[in-house]
């Protein structure tokens, strides 16, 4: 099937027009919050649907070239679509369609409290800039859109601006995103200078060698890595994502941080296309650290949304295992394996967009119903919000990479590509891969434990607080959005062939070789006959077994009666929620085993009765994990920055004459340099 350029142009125009209409509608109806909410989010939904069509058409081979030279200097605005861009537009759309649908119901609560019009404008701008940034075809266009995306998301994070915590989160996000932007800017300028062009197309063959090449890689990796939220550049992520409204958290975790991955893939396989082995090793190292530490921090976190945010750090790590592996395979001239590893990474990118959006929406539904993000105050929600519970469970099983859901397929592919590394004839590299395998395995085990905590403590057993006891199921638009994503989790896990076909085209285009993988509608074979899986058959066989066991029980004439009675409590008369295991106690063994990392601070304060030590008035116990990154990196950096700022303040005397002197000196110096 050939896709005409006219169709692509129409879809593109439709998408932009919808987002523009959404922003304009939300703004014009600012006085009527209800109308503003409906206009802003309905048009965002329409635009997301156009984006979905655009992404699919682009992956089917549609091309697009838009260039407006009048707007920006040096080449103007240049946009285009290749397979990789189209794939990321698809990733955006897959999360954006349900998010916009969800927002229609979710933002009702915000009416009269926060600016609905501001949210509508920022959301549409955010979606449009994310869709456009992956289409950018020259440096200035990319940077302008990247900044627009960062600012729009900053305003969305600041929605609940009265909260002090939000204010702090927003500030941290603002600083980190601009530090990343500065790295990107310098990297882009260096690369443009070497290629003598700002055009991305000419960068591929740019004669960049030696130290410059490494410097460019490091700068761009830092810039894109800070957006992706890799450790140690992650500190903004667990603050900013939970502070935003839940549909925005879904978009930030599901899509925005993936654009960092997009950038890294562009750098590694397109702009610089291949580098020394240490690039790949560095990416694998960052992947391992992000994955393992991300999930470990998630385990001790009891704020449901922040827990999910830490899992985004972890999943970025899992994606980077694929990307880093692909970089190393390319260094050692194994393009077929590089293709397999890159497919694994990109498939996980899509999967993570699906299940993380689902989980954030589930957390949002819980927040909507109980008005708390603290898991210790939840419990028993499966009886009060049965549908939300099923959707959240689907997302939990998917993110824990268990069959037959989608996370399993991409993690399986990642494992195979890492295992196949024995084809590289270098023992040090082999060992790096072996340790990566171990790190990924540990991550997946810990992720399963963490989602048992997240689902088990929040949804199962007895409610731990009054709001949790009175929780009600959420509205239709929110449930519909979650249902869409839960079904997508299952479909992408049972029938992965459609996406694999698109991805194998994408990686072939990027790497110039077909990936080392065959697949049919019911089977995936990786690395010759190295590994096979038939997700569909597994799902069918599991369902068949599940159906046959009750029949078997009938045949052996088992007693099928059931009686409901109290939970056994060692003979205590009544069970209350206070007997339940809490999130803190669930996480405690992990805290003890990994205490080197958490450096837990325990405090036990007991107030005794003044008459006798045997009567206790109050006991308070606190057990907090400290972040080694705050202590070791950001704390000292912050202090240094402050000390430096104190010195620089001397320049700022407040005397206009002195300022004029500065300007004169600067001008003279510039003239001398530029001569």
């Amino acid at each position, binding site marked *: 099937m050939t896709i005409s350029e006219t169709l692509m142009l129409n879809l593109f125009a439709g998408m932009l027009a919808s987002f523009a209409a959404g922003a304009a509608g939300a703004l014009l109806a600012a006085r009527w919050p209800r109308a503003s909410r409906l206009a802003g989010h309905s048009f965002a939904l329409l635009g997301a649907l156009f984006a979905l069509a655009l992404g699919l058409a682009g992956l089917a081979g549609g091309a697009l070239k838009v260039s407006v030279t009048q707007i920006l200097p040096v080449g103007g605005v240049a946009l285009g679509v290749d397979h990789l861009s189209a794939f990321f537009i698809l990733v955006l759309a897959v999360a954006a369609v349900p998010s916009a649908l969800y927002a229609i119901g979710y933002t009702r609560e915000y009416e009269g409290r926060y600016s609905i019009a501001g949210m509508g404008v920022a959301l549409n701008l955010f979606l449009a800039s994310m869709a456009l940034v992956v289409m950018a075809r020259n440096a200035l266009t990319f940077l302008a859109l990247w900044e627009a995306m960062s600012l729009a998301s900053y305003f969305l994070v600041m929605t609940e601006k009265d909260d002090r915590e939000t204010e702090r989160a927003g500030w941290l996000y603002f600083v980190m995103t601009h530090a990343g932007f500065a790295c990107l800017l310098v990297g882009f300028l260096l690369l443009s200078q070497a290629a003598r062009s700002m055009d991305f197309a000419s960068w591929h063959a740019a004669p960049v060698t030696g130290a410059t090449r490494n410097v460019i890689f490091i700068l761009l990796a830092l810039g894109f890595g800070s957006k992706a939220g890799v450790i140690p550049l992650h500190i903004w992520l667990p603050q900013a994502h939970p502070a935003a409204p839940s549909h925005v958290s879904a978009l930030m975790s599901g899509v925005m941080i993936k654009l960092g991955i997009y950038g890294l893939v562009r750098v590694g396989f397109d702009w610089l296309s291949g580098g020394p082995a240490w690039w790949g090793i560095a990416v694998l190292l960052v992947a391992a650290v992000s994955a393992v530490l991300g999930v470990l921090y998630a385990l001790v976190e009891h704020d449901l949304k922040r827990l999910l945010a830490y899992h985004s750090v972890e999943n970025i790590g899992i994606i980077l295992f694929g990307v880093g592996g692909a970089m190393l395979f390319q260094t050692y001239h194994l393009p077929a394996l590089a293709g397999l590893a890159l497919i694994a990474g990109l498939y996980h990118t899509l999967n993570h967009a699906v299940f993380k959006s689902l989980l954030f929406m589930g957390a949002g539904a819980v927040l909507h119903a109980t008005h708390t993000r603290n898991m210790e105050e939840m419990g028993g929600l499966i*009886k009060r919000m049965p549908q939300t519970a099923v959707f959240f469970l689907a997302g939990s099983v998917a993110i824990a990479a268990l069959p037959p859901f989608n996370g399993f397929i991409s993690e399986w592919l990642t494992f195979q590509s890492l295992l196949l590394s024995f084809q590289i004839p270098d023992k040090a590299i082999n060992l790096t891969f072996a340790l990566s395998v171990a790190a990924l395995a540990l991550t997946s*085990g810990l992720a399963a*434990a963490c989602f048992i905590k997240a689902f*088990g403590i929040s949804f*199962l057993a007895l409610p731990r607080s009054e709001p949790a006891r009175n929780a009600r199921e959420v509205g239709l638009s929110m449930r519909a959005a979650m249902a869409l994503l839960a079904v997508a989790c299952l479909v992408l896990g049972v029938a992965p062939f459609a996406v694999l076909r698109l991805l194998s085209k994408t990686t072939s285009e990027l790497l110039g070789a077909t990936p080392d993988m065959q697949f049919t509608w019911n089977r995936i074979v990786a690395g010759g006959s190295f*590994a096979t*899986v038939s997700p569909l*058959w597994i799902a069918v066989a599991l369902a068949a077994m599940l159906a046959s066991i009750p029949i078997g*029980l009938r045949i052996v004439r088992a007693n099928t009666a059931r009686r409901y009675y109290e939970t056994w409590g060692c003979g205590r008369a009544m069970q209350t929620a206070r007997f339940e*295991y809490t999130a803190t106690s669930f996480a405690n063994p992990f805290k003890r085993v990994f205490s080197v990392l958490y450096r837990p601070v325990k405090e036990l304060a007991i107030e005794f009765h003044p008459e006798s030590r045997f009567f206790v008035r109050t006991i308070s116990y606190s057990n907090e994990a400290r972040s080694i990154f705050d202590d070791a990196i950001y704390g000292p950096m912050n202090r240094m920055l402050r000390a430096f700022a104190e010195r620089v303040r001397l320049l700022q005397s407040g005397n206009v004459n002195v300022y004029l002197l500065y300007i004169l000196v600067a001008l003279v110096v510039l003239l001398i340099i530029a001569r």
Partner: protein
Amino acid sequence: MTVRILVEAIQLLIMALGAPLLVGSVRKLKARLQGRRGASVFQPYRDLRKLLVKEAVISENTSWIFRFTPYLVASVMLLSSLVVPMLSTRTPLGFTGNIIVLMYLLLLATFFLALAGLDAGSAFGGMGSSREMIIAALAEPTVMIAIFAIALRVGSTSLDEIVRRGADDSLLLLNPGHLLAFVAFFIVALAETGRLPVDNPATHLELTMIHEAMILEYSGRHLALIEWAAGMKLFLFLTLLSNLFFPWGVARTLEPLPVAIAFAALALKVGALAAAVAILETSIAKLRLFRVPELLSGSFTLALLAVISFFFVR
């Protein structure tokens, strides 16, 4: 086609019917080693029958997760009996998944068991879930690295392929990497199936239980399914240990005679491993929970050494 279905049916029956016998035999041998007479090796069958005629008492606080889990756990074990090469290297459904798929299916069962442990709202269940998961999570790297070691040796992660190429290799046991991987996998198998020194299957003291604490609220047919599944998991791991590492006697074809020989060989090998488990359980004490990570990191080191030795020997 008929032969294939027949072979799968035989494997299913071996697993389903053999598991209680295996559990009974281990218990019997342990009793003898400890100087007791012990119950008959068929006692687990009687226990299961007893549980099946009793009604299930379910906690009022639980949800559908609690009732669904026993069925899922048993289904996963039955499904894995179809995928694992028990008798021949031509397991008809072997193509549905490699060894990593198998490990993730087992993790799926553990995931739901741990959720069910939290479902009743009892402190014991939560404690069991939390402890079970830290052991499962810490065992995961060893499992994968041991798989890596095997994959390096045979160049494949398909279960059938591992067994076939292992059977072709006559000098298998002289390979240090192979033996290291075996020991690592054996320790993990003990942890995964809740045996000493990680967990004590015979304990009924709440504070030391792990797996038993997690399933404390179960009764009737649900408990029967879970006990049966636990037996099958032990059977599965002993089968994997014997056929992946000592692939002697496994049939290369689906002819009746080789399959019959393979059956006898399987019974011998699993029996020998079961005896090893019984002797081990009699001679060592349970480790403190917070010493278990040390044991598991030891097994991880062994597995990693296995991988390294393959890189340097090849």
